[in-house]
């Protein structure tokens, strides 16, 4: 079962105690105590990066970064996102949940592009730059 508390989504698990019991007044008997364990599942918001996954050297590749809720629905919010690839980071301002940037590489290779923001799941896109 998933549960949202604040800006995070938790996986909720109920674990019956092996030795601890609690008295059930209605039933008139003791029953196992139930531990409630919540583990972080994801944040309520996430970033996604959309665009082609291949380009050539020095050819700009337009990428769109979107802010969605954890179930994939668009969010109409402004947000400052950090876009990173191989240790290089730029800041992108998302307006109404959308922002665009051009990715250009002078070298060939595979680049993992990450979009991050505070209290928000990151977006990932792998782009191949050909000769």
């Amino acid at each position, binding site marked *: 079962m998933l549960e949202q508390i604040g800006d995070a989504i938790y996986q909720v698990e109920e674990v019956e105690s092996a030795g601890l019991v609690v008295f059930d007044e209605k039933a008139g008997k003791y029953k196992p105590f139930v531990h409630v364990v919540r583990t972080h599942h994801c944040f309520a918001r996430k970033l996604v990066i959309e665009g082609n996954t291949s380009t050539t050297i020095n050819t700009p590749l337009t990428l769109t970064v979107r802010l969605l809720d954890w179930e994939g629905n668009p969010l109409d919010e402004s947000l400052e996102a950090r876009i*990173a690839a191989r240790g290089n980071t730029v800041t992108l301002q998302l307006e109404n949940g959308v922002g665009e940037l051009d990715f250009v590489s002078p070298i060939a290779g595979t680049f993992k592009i990450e979009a991050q923001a505070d209290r928000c799941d990151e977006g990932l896109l792998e782009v191949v730059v050909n000769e």
Partner: protein
Amino acid sequence: MASGLIAPLLGLLYQIGQREDSASTTGGALARLAWVVNKQDAFKDKTPYIAKSTNTVRDSWVDVVNITGSGYLTSVAAGAYDTDEVTIGFRIVIDGVEKFAAGSLAEKQFFQLTSSYDRVTSGFTFPTLNMRFKTSLRVQRIVSCASSVSNVCAVAVYQLD
């Protein structure tokens, strides 16, 4: 047959009378806790659980586990794999009281990875804590890095009563 029934019952009644932290003192009449004294009370017999968080969000506290119940926090650990230096800190809240929070760099280094010029790599470490919690446990982690963190993992090992 009779002794098999009476013995656990005696243990039950004894504990109801002895425990001052039974739920009846804090909650309503419905919640009367009793502790059955048997082999499951022994720390060594409890089942270990591991909660894991691989979220890569930086500079924010992220829950690794948040438990309503009682048991032991056995240990916490973290690891990362990145091209930049990664610092990881933990916050431990037992029964609603913050017991430890990595505020300064020195405190974070207690659980921190070492870094190299090229790439940070670390295996897990498991400092033994064995901290008792009676009503709740919350373990959070915070990650700092010069740029996006590619891979990070924080775990909490715990046991439930």
